[in-house]
């Protein structure tokens, strides 16, 4: 066979590693800062560097900058070698690199400025969202083009996971980011209220699945057997857990919304699919850990294997905890508490951070043709980081369970044991300090790694590996080999069997209980008999259906798209349909123009990072906050503000609960009216003003999204807003001789807070009709 010599593009991986380590330091440093801000409120530096604005910066930096660059480095390095082909285009590789870095820089600038969509892990505003989509497409083109030029016909399991990542992230990002611009740096989500909540957590959960899990599993499948020099445990386990994972993961998003106003059927789907995810996730863990069979003794000396083994163990731990937290009663305790923060850090620090460290320690010496500068330092990094994670996770468990129990503790006669919310926060202070210590240890270990990698790179010189590969690419070779037609693969027996069983089960949504029982029994029978038939018809002299599929990148991709889309379509489409119906019958009234302006202030300050607006149906929760939240309460909220964490109390029914003066004093200095509060102060809202004329565009965009403002209301928005603002400002002046400019953000946010959970009052909103006096929504 003719061969040729090719050189891999390893330069791009070196650059991505450099970027990942650099942004990792930034992202984790911001993490340490926000941890300090929770333990010690004085470390907030409003407006730009206070918790509400830095927390999104931390999550975005760690997920998209640190892990993002790490996965690009690993994907590009391993893909070229697994496909025996150099990356298709150096130009696209560089566009990918610099495009991604500029997105990160624009995130680092806009988030502290309060430019945000407020959708968690998708906060970046629309121009940056478009840039992300474009750069992702560049990555995809570069990847699939390389795939087309491969000299290795069969795709190894790592490549399967990369394909799933590319497809799913594109779909998730684009759908969740759909928004109508209000201006160059502001937009409103096209989805509102409960729909927006569902779409957001379909995205949020699957960003974890397809950005932090599937590409890293692919990286595990390449770098772990390389580092251990041992055969991968089981090919058939790879097949089963790959397809199960990509299919099941997508459905699990609603477990972030248990006991909210999301319909019961969607909550149940979220919960049961999360429970079913346990085994497929552990399939990845087993395949990783069992690959180490025969190499366990080397863990004592080799830091790379130490990091990989610990990473996979943390993955197993986090993917057990995930399904556990998805059980409704457990969620009832843990939701909105620090338990969730601990859970995600077991995944981010343990799984992602340790996979990254192992991969860097393995790759950098090879990319620079040298040995690791200091094994000892790498080992110390490992022990520091492991201890740091344990401190972090354990302190957050304690904090979460403590607060969850304090919220629900009742006295004998039905009152709350801790009626003052603040008590339940102050009880956590020691845990917040412990977490800070744990996070700092981890950060120190990471900086040691950066230094070690830098010294390693300096001791060698960049090497781009050259290899001998078969001269012909696959297109040339294809004509000489028998070719299975694509439809025999797409409609192969396993796919048909899956479609039949899936189709039968999907009728459960429509039929009565008798038919449901019958169908489930039938589906079980079909699945069983079908599997047996597939086993019996396997011929030992022919490749299996899946083996054929692995040789066909396009067909494989198409089937992956199908598996990834089903869950999202099944959950989101019904919600969008009922959403437009709900809009027609709602009794809720849209926000007044000033309240809308105040809502933008609430969003920009990141209030949602600490305050929920969703009262769950528990007696102890309604005693504290008032009537259970309904979907109707937030029907006009583009985007929704249900939140995911209660460092402060729920605000769903804050309107009218306290006076304007209380809110004013509280925002200027929370400690004045709420002794011991850890909330940052928002005195700058008094100085920062807005233009009434700018509100018209906001109301107009809301109208285009289906919020029932009349044309007249749109036109009058600036005047109505001003009238309401003057009312509030003069009220404060009269009450306590406080001078607040009517066009200050302070006045707007007070108007918004006073509206939460109730209909407009004639006084509050001169534009509203008289029939809606003070009464609760719905």
């Amino acid at each position: 066979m003719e061969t040729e010599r090719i050189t891999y593009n390893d330069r791009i991986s070196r650059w991505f590693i450099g970027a990942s380590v650099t942004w990792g330091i930034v992202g984790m440093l911001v993490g340490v800062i926000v941890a300090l801000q929770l333990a010690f409120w004085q470390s907030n530096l409003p407006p730009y560097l206070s918790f509400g604005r830095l927390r999104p910066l931390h999550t975005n930096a760690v997920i998209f900058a640190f892990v993002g660059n790490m996965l690009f480095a690993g994907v590009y390095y391993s893909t070229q070698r697994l496909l025996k082909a150099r990356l298709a285009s150096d130009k696209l590789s560089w566009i990918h690199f610099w495009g991604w870095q500029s997105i990160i820089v624009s995130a680092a600038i806009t988030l502290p400025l309060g430019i945000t969509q407020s959708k968690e892990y998708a906060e970046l505003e629309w121009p940056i969202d478009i840039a992300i989509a474009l750069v992702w497409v560049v990555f995809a083109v570069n990847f699939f083009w390389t795939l087309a030029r491969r000299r290795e016909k069969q795709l190894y399991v790592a490549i399967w996971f990369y394909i799933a990542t590319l497809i799913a992230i594109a779909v998730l990002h684009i759908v969740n980011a759909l928004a109508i611009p209000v201006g160059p740096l502001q937009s409103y989500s096209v989805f509102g209220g409960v729909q927006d909540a569902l779409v957001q957590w379909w995205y949020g959960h699957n960003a974890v699945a397809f950005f932090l899990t599937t590409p890293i599993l692919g990286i595990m499948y390449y770098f772990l057997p390389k580092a251990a020099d041992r055969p991968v445990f089981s090919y058939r386990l790879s097949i089963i857990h790959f397809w199960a994972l990509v299919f099941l993961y997508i459905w699990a998003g609603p477990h972030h919304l248990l006991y909210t106003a999301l319909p019961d059927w969607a909550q149940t789907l979220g919960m049961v699919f999360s429970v079913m995810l346990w085994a497929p996730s552990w399939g990845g863990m087993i395949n990783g850990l069992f690959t180490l069979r025969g190499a366990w003794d080397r863990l004592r000396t080799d830091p790379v294997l130490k990091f990989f083994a610990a990473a996979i163990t943390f993955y197993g731990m986090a993917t057990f905890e995930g399904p556990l937290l998805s059980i409704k009663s457990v969620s009832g305790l843990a939701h909105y508490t620090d338990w969730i923060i601990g859970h995600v850090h077991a995944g981010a620090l343990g799984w992602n951070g340790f996979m990254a460290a192992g991969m860097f320690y393995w790759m950098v010496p090879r990319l620079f043709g040298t040995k690791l500068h200091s094994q000892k330092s790498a080992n110390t990094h490992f022990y520091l980081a492991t201890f740091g994670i344990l401190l972090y996770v354990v302190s957050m468990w304690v904090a979460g369970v403590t607060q969850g129990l304090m919220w629900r503790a009742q006295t004998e006669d039905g009152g709350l044991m801790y009626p003052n919310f603040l008590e339940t926060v102050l009880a956590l202070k020691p845990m917040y300090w412990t977490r800070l210590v744990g996070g700092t240890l981890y950060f120190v270990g990471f900086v040691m790694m950066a230094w070690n990698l830098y010294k390693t790179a300096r001791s060698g010189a960049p090497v781009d590996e050259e290899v001998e590969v078969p001269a012909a690419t696959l297109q040339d070779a294809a004509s000489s080999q028998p070719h299975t037609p694509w439809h025999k693969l797409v409609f192969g027996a396993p796919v048909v069997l899956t479609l039949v069983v899936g189709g039968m089960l999907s009728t459960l949504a429509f039929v009565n209980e008798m038919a449901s029982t019958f169908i489930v029994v039938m589906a079980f029978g079909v699945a069983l008999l079908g599997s047996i038939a597939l086993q019996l018809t396997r011929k030992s002299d022919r490749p299996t259906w899946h083996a054929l599929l692995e040789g066909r990148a396009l067909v494989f991709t198409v089937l992956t798209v199908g598996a990834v889309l089903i869950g999202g379509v099944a959950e989101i489409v019904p919600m969008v349909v009922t959403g437009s119906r709900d809009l027609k019958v709602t009794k809720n009234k849209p926000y007044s123009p000033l309240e809308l302006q105040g809502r933008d202030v609430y969003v920009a300050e990141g209030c949602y990072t600490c305050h929920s607006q969703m009262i769950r149906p528990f007696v102890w929760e309604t005693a504290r906050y008032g009537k259970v939240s309904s979907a109707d309460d937030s029907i006009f909220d583009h985007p929704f503000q249900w939140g995911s964490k209660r460092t402060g109390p729920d605000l769903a029914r804050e309107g009218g609960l306290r006076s304007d003066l209380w809110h004013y004093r509280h925002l200027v200095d929370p400690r004045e009216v709420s002794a011991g509060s850890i909330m940052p102060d928002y005195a700058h809202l008094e100085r920062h003003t807005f233009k009434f004329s700018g509100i018209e565009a906001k109301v107009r965009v809301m109208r285009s999204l289906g919020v029932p403002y009349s044309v007249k209301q749109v036109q009058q928005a600036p005047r109505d807003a001003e009238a309401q603002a003057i009312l509030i400002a003069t009220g404060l002046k009269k009450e306590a001789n406080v001078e607040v400019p009517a066009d200050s953000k302070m006045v707007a946010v007070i108007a918004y807070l006073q509206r939460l959970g109730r209909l407009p009052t004639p006084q509050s909103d001169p534009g509203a009709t008289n029939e809606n006096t003070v009464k609760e929504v719905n």
Partner: protein
Amino acid sequence: MTDHNAPLRKDEIQGDVIHEYDGIEEADNDLPQWWLGLFYACTLFAVGYWFYYHVYNVGPLTMEAYAKELADSVGEGGEVSEELLLALMEDPDAIAEGSALFVANCVVCHNAKGEGNIGPNLTDPYWIHGGSPVDIHRVIDQGVLSAGMPAWGSLLGPEKARQVTAYALTLRGTNIPGKQPQGELWSPDNGAEPGTP
């Protein structure tokens, strides 16, 4: 093209190696039985859970469960009378407890001695919503949504709501200079009468 059915070599721990990619060998061990069992069990649980709640409707859905919890939790002892509240004023334990509750929850708006700040002065004879013990208890228990007074009854429970009312009654008439009088002049004998706030 790799032959998919003949092993490339046999590894003494992992068994037959069937594929090799860039030097990475791949074995094909059976799925662990306990793992398969876990997968089946979780799937069965999922189907069973769906049937229990959404097909046979045996289990209560979220709001049904809440309605039941709410019905069970409606406790005794929410009713008060003037005699009861006045009697509590003489009970040192109740006043001590009420005082602590007042410090924890009320001084933010009504100040340490009840002389008023964000909320009205509780020590003067003027009352916006009535000054009788039962009136004061009602305001504390149910709140005044339009005026920024939260409903404390559901938060504190009936006993503590009574205790803090009793404590507030001890402040009535202490006439501490503070926030200007609001509401109507009220006296125990005559009830509300038109006043000059």
